[in-house]
């Protein structure tokens, strides 16, 4: 146990290349959205992409809050010195939530999203459009209840995210154990709510695009995806900060822990994905297999790419202990996993919206780049507001001495 001379007031300066690049990325995103809305035929595709990235953005941010809560509830010591990164992600959640709600609201209003269950005459028996299945589900899938659920869930997540960040701020100012105890209590409450509501959130946002089909695994499948992509994001931010000369206290053992998390939850994602796939494949019932039928007809390449990026790559590359501790390998795998989950969301959302007219062009890449820029800009901007280390965290010494 050595003594350390770390600068506890070290703050991130958000200037230079990071700022320029993220602003350029946002401009590219806006251009892509502008291009997408320039032609009537592209509207649905643009909306589908906006939903994809807004959902991805919100999921990564709320999993940042989830990461905080897990660390508090587990009373984890190793992570104390890196908590400012997920905290910055959690603080960006309200922005992500507003964007997601706007995209969903606009999509519903213009009938570009969720038209499978939201269209004229679907629940009217005398109409030519009448759909018995949708009528049966209309008590749950109707616009006021749907948007109401979204607003309530996302508001709760945002409240807890902001409150945990605020408690950590209080801890910096006052010291003592009060903030930590409160964080523990609120984290417990948050985890219970989060665990029960994220599946419903995923059912609403993504699964209801194809409202005839349903899968009870879908919620956990999405939870696994959002959690592992958030872990990969945390790893990327930490490694890049370290390369830029910040956070010198983050050592290989912290990376090792994050690597284990990414490795483990990539396998968890595959496990849940496979649970959903195998049961449908084995039972072979038409109302269920229609989901994979669509994906095999028009998305076969994406379907297999998804497994390669999200299962084979992290498992084979992160299995070795030395690779988890190696900065550049972990960075590369994290980027692969992030791209992989874009592919994952892509083949969750596209078959239910644009169906066989999917494409991979300027709209897809531009909107993805735009949201990455927005995320980078907002998170780094938030990160630069506070010191990079929670100096009064009770487990800080344990984290600084972390060694595996």
């Amino acid at each position: 146990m050595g003594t350390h001379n770390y600068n506890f007031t070290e703050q991130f300066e958000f200037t230079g290349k990071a700022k320029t690049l993220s602003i350029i990325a946002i401009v590219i995103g806006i251009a892509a959205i502008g291009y997408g809305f320039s032609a009537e035929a592209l509207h649905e595709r643009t909306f589908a992409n906006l939903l994809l990235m807004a959902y991805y953005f919100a999921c990564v941010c709320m999993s940042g809050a989830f990461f905080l809560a897990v660390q508090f509830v587990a009373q984890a010591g190793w992570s104390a010195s890196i908590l400012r990164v997920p905290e910055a992600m959690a603080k960006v959640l309200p922005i992500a939530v507003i964007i997601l709600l706007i995209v969903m609201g606009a999509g519903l209003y213009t009938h570009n999203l969720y038209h499978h269950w939201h269209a004229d005459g679907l629940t009217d028996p005398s109409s030519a459009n009448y759909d018995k299945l949708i009528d049966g589900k209309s008590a749950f899938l109707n616009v006021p209840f749907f948007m109401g659920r979204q607003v309530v869930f996302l508001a709760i997540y945002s409240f807890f995210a902001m409150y945990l960040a605020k408690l950590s701020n209080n801890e910096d100012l006052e010291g003592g154990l009060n903030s930590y105890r409160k964080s523990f209590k609120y984290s417990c409450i948050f985890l219970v709510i989060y665990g029960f509501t994220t599946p419903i959130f995923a059912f609403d946002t993504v699964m209801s695009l194809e409202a005839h089909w349903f899968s009870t695994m879908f919620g956990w499948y999405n939870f696994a995806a959002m959690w592992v992509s958030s872990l990969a994001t945390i790893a990327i931010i930490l490694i890049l900060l370290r390369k830029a000369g910040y956070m010198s206290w983050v050592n290989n053992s912290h990376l090792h822990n994050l690597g284990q998390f990414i490795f483990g939850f990539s396998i968890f994602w595959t496990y849940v994905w496979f649970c959903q796939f195998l049961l449908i494949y084995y039972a072979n019932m038409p109302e269920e297999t229609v989901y994979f039928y669509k994906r095999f007809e028009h998305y076969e390449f994406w379907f297999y790419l998804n497994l390669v990026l999200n299962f084979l790559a992290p498992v084979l590359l992160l299995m070795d202990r030395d690779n988890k501790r190696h900065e550049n390998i972990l960075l590369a795998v994290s980027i692969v996993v992030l791209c992989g989950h874009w592919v994952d969301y892509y083949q969750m959302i596209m078959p239910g919206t644009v169906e066989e007219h999917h494409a991979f062009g300027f709209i897809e890449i531009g909107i993805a780049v735009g949201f990455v820029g927005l995320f980078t800009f907002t998170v780094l901007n938030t990160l630069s507001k506070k010191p990079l280390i929670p100096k009064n965290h009770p487990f800080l010494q344990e984290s600084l001495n972390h060694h595996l």
Partner: protein
Amino acid sequence: MNNIKYILGSFGDPDEMMHGIDKLQENNIKIHDVYTPMPIHGIEAKLGVKRSRLDIAAFFFGITGTCTMLTFVYFAAAYDWPINIGGKPHFALPDFIPITFELTILFCAFGLVGSYYASSHLFPGRAPRVMDLRATDDRFIIAIDAKENTDHSKIDDLLKEAGALEVKHNERKYISYE
């Protein structure tokens, strides 16, 4: 004096024992091994213990399990006695992933238990061999090969200086539980 095979320094406190290791290493005395009743953080690095190859063994045991199950399933379901199940191909891979996974884990677990027994010379019917019984209870033992390091009185002094409660000169390598 000439029959002494091992010198054991018995410590009551892990920090003192770590200090003892430092002292011995400063004087270029090679340490045979260290026995402690609990894991001690960082002791492998200090003693220069090589990294365990158990993980590599685990990987190969696992792969063996995967191959065994896939081969068996192919033989049983597609070659020896093909049955049409739900119109699927005889060798429908997704169906057999769960059992393949299970056998991977099983081979891996059994293989590792076997490797552990083999490398620690500990298996059913064999009396466990220890150098000092109290290393399994409340003492931290540093063992030094007395044939290689001939200056016994110096070793005794260094151990006592570092806080050893007791220094033993053993004429046998192991004492057994029997």
